[in-house]
């Protein structure tokens, strides 16, 4: 585990800085909303219950969903803005609730004493009520801080850099060191901020102004210093005159080409392949990894990213809302024309492999139970199917069940990272494997035939945003990839990461070398 550390630490300034920037901004914004609102609501019951009601409802939305919802609400914007807004909303409730409860808990006798001594409403609030409610409010601020810092790890799928980048890519590539490292960093950050706030509170309470001041300063300085370190670190390295010339000659303007990726290994590898291909042509590039499946499409449509790889079946069902699949080539044609007509998105071409869902069993199971096609499954006395939660919600699961008469099946939702081991260890009988996954080869799995065409085709396609499509040099740089990655090559590359524990970059090199050799 420790040999992974240098690599993780290398990206720490960027991830920690992003995390810090996001969570501190969200906490401050949440304070700016909830403190005044809480004060107002504490004095006016007509505001209190709707304000608390809305904040509580927001709180019951899982953080991940709230974050993902922000993307379409902001018209497909990804990155800082949706994450910031969602986390701000998330941080409002604890502070709002504690402000209201704290202020309402102030003894009415004391409030009357303040008025009797000649304080105005404002003076009574500032000198008597807020100081008396301060412990409750501070507790709310600390809760909000811990929540927001924790939830900021979930900003990764909407394209905001955070410590969640370690966790999400670690989960997908089964790099447990990265997952643990990300968790520890974010927990450490939450604890640190919590303790700093507690310290400044103690300083205030005991009247030791200097102690309070010191912690408040630390509270401002520590994020500031981390940010400064990050800024220095991420400043673009000086570009040689030669590279600049090459880029101008190639017709690629100064704008970076932004490459998107969903959150699984194959996507990281292909994004890296695309990125290197563009860089070789002299383009400047940028990456947005770990985007959610709908988030990434919205981002392409709005031009937030320029290029990524998607799959025809996904677009057919999710973006176009079609229910019944059609054959592979027809689907590709329909999807590309729909993309171009509706959003100006150009399907540059097919990479040459499919990453479809395939019902997979171990070779041993296929032998002993005598199954070769999905149709054979119906005859089995009992059957448990492992799949990612997304699959069970999809149409094709319904279709498969009705076409092959699969009743009384036990459904086991699990992260796709775990399903291959689950079927190998006989925890489930069948999984809905991704047909391009490296573990299909490595674990000696058999993909069952689908004679009735229940499972739609999932052709991998390079998509260019309307904007990127207007830059011919981008298309030229990526053309060599079209038709150049067949299923075996993709499986092999996936296996480099998922089975052999190599890096994404090694897998990308494998693909590029094969293409060159052709």
């Amino acid at each position, binding site marked *: 585990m420790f040999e992974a550390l240098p690599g993780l630490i290398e990206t720490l300034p960027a991830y920690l800085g992003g995390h810090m920037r996001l969570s501190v901004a969200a906490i401050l914004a949440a304070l700016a909303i909830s403190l005044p609102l809480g004060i107002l609501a504490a004095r006016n019951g007509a505001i209190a219950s709707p304000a608390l009601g809305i904040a509580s409802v927001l709180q019951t939305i899982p953080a991940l969903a709230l974050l993902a919802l922000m993307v379409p609400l902001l018209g497909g914007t990804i990155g800082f803005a949706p994450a910031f807004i969602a986390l701000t909303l998330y941080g409002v409730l604890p502070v709002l609730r504690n402000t209201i409860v704290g202020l309402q808990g102030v003894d009415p*006798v*004391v409030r*009357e*004493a*303040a*008025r*009797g*001594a*000649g*304080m*105005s409403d404002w*003076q009574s609030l500032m*000198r*008597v009520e807020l*100081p*008396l409610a301060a412990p409750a409010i501070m507790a709310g601020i600390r809760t909000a801080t811990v929540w927001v810092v924790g939830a900021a790890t979930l900003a990764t799928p909407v394209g905001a850099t955070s410590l969640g980048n370690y966790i999400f890519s670690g989960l997908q590539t089964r790099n447990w060191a990265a997952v643990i490292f990300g968790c520890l960093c974010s927990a450490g950050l939450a604890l640190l901020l919590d303790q700093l706030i507690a310290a400044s509170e103690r300083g205030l309470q005991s009247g030791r102004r200097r102690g309070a001041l010191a912690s408040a300063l630390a509270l401002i300085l520590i994020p500031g210093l981390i940010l400064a370190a990050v800024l220095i670190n991420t400043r673009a390295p000086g570009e040689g005159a030669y590279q600049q010339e090459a880029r101008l000659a190639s017709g690629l303007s100064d704008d970076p080409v932004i490459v998107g990726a969903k959150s699984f290994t194959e996507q990281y590898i292909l994004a890296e392949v695309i990125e290197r291909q563009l860089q070789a042509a002299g383009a400047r590039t940028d990456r947005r990894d770990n985007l959610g499946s709908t988030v990434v499409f919205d981002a392409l449509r709005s031009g937030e990213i320029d290029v990524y790889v998607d799959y025809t079946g996904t677009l057919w069902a999710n973006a176009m809302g079609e229910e019944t699949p059609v054959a592979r080539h027809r689907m590709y044609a329909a999807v590309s024309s729909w993309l171009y007509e509706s959003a100006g998105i150009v399907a540059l071409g097919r990479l040459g492999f499919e990453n479809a869902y395939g019902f997979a069993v171990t070779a041993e199971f296929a032998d002993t139970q005598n199954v070769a096609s999905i149709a054979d499954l119906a005859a089995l006395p009992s059957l448990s199917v492992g799949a990612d939660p997304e699959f069970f919600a999809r149409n094709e699961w319904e279709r498969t069940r009705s076409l092959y008469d699969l009743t009384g099946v036990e459904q086991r939702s699990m992260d796709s990272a775990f399903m291959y081991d689950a079927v190998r260890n006989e925890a489930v009988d069948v999984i809905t494997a991704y047909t391009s996954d490296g573990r299909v080869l490595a674990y000696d799995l058999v993909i069952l035939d689908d004679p009735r065409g229940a499972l739609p085709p999932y052709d991998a396609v390079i998509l260019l945003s309307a904007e990127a499509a207007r830059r011919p040099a981008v298309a030229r740089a990526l053309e060599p990839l079209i038709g150049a990655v067949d299923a075996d090559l993709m499986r092999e590359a996936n296996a480099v990461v998922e089975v052999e524990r190599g890096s994404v970059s090694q897998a990308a090199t494998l693909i590029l070398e094969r293409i060159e050799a052709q």
Partner: protein
Amino acid sequence: MILTVDQLEKTYRGGFRAVREVSFAVDAREVVALVGESGCGKTTTLKCINRLLEPSDGRILIDNEDAADLDPVALRRRIGWVMQGDGLFPHMSVAENIAVTPQLLGWDAPRISKRVDEVLDLVRLDPAQYRDRRPDQLSGGQRQRVGVARALAAGSRLVLMDEPFGALDPITRDGLRTDFMDLQTRIGFAAVMVTHDMAEALLMADRIAVMHAGEIVQYDTPKALLNAPAHPIVRQMLESPLHEADAVQALKAAAVRDV
């Protein structure tokens, strides 16, 4: 007249008429006691004077100015106020509690600090020992004295006091009463003091307003009250302290005989 209460009415939301046609006047340097059984409207009357409650009808004149025309916040800074209970700010030290109104009036720090020590001396609390204590580090009686000190801090010419000596043992109470009387004669502020202890009213007040069910049934000097009680309630209220005194005297006589 420093204070004139003229036909004061207070009907609470919900329609309960707590104060009915109450009228009395207080001269400068005069101590007036409001006496009456629990719930008869004493606190309500007092709060209408500094506009912690808005009167439903009638007029309050402070220094011949209609209180309704004055800014209530400025009005309250002019009038000292001792709350029923003590009403101290739990998050402030004794000194900070006392300094509240002078600060609101914009006094400078040295003047405030000097004043805090003065009023603490007045209520017989050693400043060196008590200045920096928090209210929860005081006894109930000490808190009440701080409450009185706070009301006197800004040097108001009119002080409203709601049962200021309520929670004190008889000896402290006796001492504090005497001190208060000295103080009042020395400084010469006027005071309206609520109590339900008729003996206290008789001993301390220049004039007594006896309240019953929201109304003043008699407003007179202690002497006139003792000589000519105008209402059965007044008679009843006068009797209880006299009874007590008689009973104690009789006991004492019996005790002497036994020896």
